[in-house]
């Protein structure tokens, strides 16, 4: 799942980026409001983690702009200005959650997960699909009570397909959700992950739709 981190403070941003990556999210880091605006117009994100005190274009302005173009991407605001009035103002302006600096990295990750979960219409973290139980927070997958050893990338692909059950996802879309700006992507990386998943979880679990992409059918 691809997340846009907007933060001008290098020391905070690098830590948050690291933490979110560790949690299995794909992170793009924008240093200022303009860069974030550009990223949001060119890429589809499932979550924006936004600092309010930004150079060039403030976080509040960015939020206004985002909501102004009817973009419902969940936004988590993190800021040092966290009086009740600031929080209320931020939430009214269209933020989905508010976190005051300094914050706990684990709390930030948990809140990000909660926002992502809610965006996909789930109320619990655990995803159940036929005999599969997936715990996105710990990257554990059990099938029929048996733990399946998956790599974090494989797990990310699985979660991506599971959250869009019944909707075919293109290779490019999966790739986009898997790798950030700075990461090198091998041309057949997605195919490799899919074939590994089929090997581990059974050949019929992911269907290929030629010319479109991959899909996991809706659990009946």
């Amino acid at each position, binding site marked *: 799942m691809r997340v846009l981190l907007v933060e001008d403070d290098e020391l905070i941003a690098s830590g948050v980026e690291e933490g979110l990556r*560790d949690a299995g999210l794909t992170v793009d880091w924008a240093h200022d409001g303009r860069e974030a605006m550009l990223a949001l117009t060119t890429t589809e994100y499932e979550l924006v983690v936004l600092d309010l005190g930004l*150079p060039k274009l403030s976080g509040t302005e960015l939020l206004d702009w985002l909501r102004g173009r009817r973009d419902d991407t969940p936004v988590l605001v993190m800021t040092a*200005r966290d009086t009740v009035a600031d929080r209320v103002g931020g939430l009214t302006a269209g933020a989905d959650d508010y976190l005051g600096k*300094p*914050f*706990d990295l684990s709390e930030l990750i948990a809140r990000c997960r909660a926002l992502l979960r809610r965006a996909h219409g789930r109320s619990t973290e655990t995803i159940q699909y036929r005999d599969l139980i997936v715990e996105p927070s710990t990257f554990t997958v059990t099938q029929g009570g048996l733990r399946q050893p998956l790599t974090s990338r494989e797990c990310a692909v699985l979660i991506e397909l599971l959250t869009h059950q019944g909707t075919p996802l293109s290779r490019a879309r999966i790739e986009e959700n898997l790798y950030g700006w700075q990461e090198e992507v091998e041309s057949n990386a997605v195919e490799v992950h899919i074939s590994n998943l089929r090997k581990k979880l059974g050949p019929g679990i992911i269907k290929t739709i030629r010319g479109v992409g991959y899909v996991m059918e809706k659990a009946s």
Partner: protein
Amino acid sequence: MTTSIRQRLTLLVLVSVALVWALALISSYRQAIHEAGEWDDARIEQVARTLALVDVNDLVALVNETSHVSDDDGDDDVSRRLLYEVRDLNGQLLAASPGLPGLPPTAAPSAPGKDAANSATAGVPEWNIHQLRDALHDRSVRVFERNDSRADLGAGVARRIARPLAFALPVLALVIWAAIGSSLAPLKILSRAIAARNVDNLETIDLQGTPAEVSPLVDALNVLLSRLHASLDRERAFTADAAHELKSPLAAIKVQAQVALTTRDPAKQRLAMQRVVEAVDRSTHLAEQLLLLARLDERIPAAAIDVHLDTVARECIAARGADALAKGLELSVAGDAYVTIEAPPAFVRIMLDNLVDNAIKYAEAGGRVEIVTRQTPEATLLLVRDNGRGVTEQDRMRLSDRFFRAADARQSGTGLGLSIVARIVDRLGGKLTYTTGIDGRGLGVEIRLPPSSRHNLP
């Protein structure tokens, strides 16, 4: 002297009124006494003339009858006693009031036909004697009037004039007291309006119908209030900003420490810990800058000595050799040598450090940073300039604002450096202007300091 305006005014007005009244009283008393005296003389002469004409038989009865001139006007005047003695010109007593003191008849004859009212005192202490010699009727009349009856008359007149005043003065005092009290009411309203305020309410005072004498006070108060308001607002904004700025490095420390704690990759752990150290350094620097600014604001006196600007500039540049080399910058000092100013040496060094740090930070790789010192008879000039990206005209106006950072600032910083420089320049009595840097590029900071005269800074 009492400090109450009301008491003072009342006292002053009453004393002046009493004084004026006393003067008026004295003058009317004198006038009254004079008038009464004349009237009395006329009356006595008339009585004497009558006695000179009256038949001898009637004379005795008349003298007995009229020796008591009763005063029936109801007041407490002393009885206006007159005594008479009528003789013929040979000195033969014709009639005399009873109780008349034995007095020698006056032998001095007056010119016949001429009525002479001789009111000279004839040696008897208690009595005034008025004498009339009437040659035509062969009579010599003497009218005796008690010595003190004139004084009694005067006292009576004085009492009559003074009595209403004795009543009027307390009434007047009350009226004045009340009038002054009501005139001072706006002051009372004002003080109540001020007393009713709490510390947070520094809005200007708006009183309806303030009298002309009180409005300057209200105006002055309002000016003070709005100044206080502005300074309190600045203070609050500063505290909020400072807290905000301190939270950012703290957030960085926490995040990086947690990354170090959770990651299993030793290289990432090490990197995270390095960033923790970096963030601690940054917050330390911020705390130092804040403390410095607070000290400058407190205006703690600092001893000024002769400082060679160009020497300090060279020291400052020498200390940054490594930074400059890393960025490929050329640092130089130019202009006059031995430019001397009188200032606390620490101030000069802090000022130059901040300016050069800024210039190095915003200069582009391979660029130049230059310190120019110049001495003119009117002023000492210090110029620090670079040929970096510079600052827009719009942002230059706000460069000295605390925590202000240019919109496109990519470099980390506290946003306090130039406000510290501005405070120091202010304390040195100088003037700070932002111009363009080297070759029409970058930023130039020009500081004009007054020519030295040995003094301790406030």
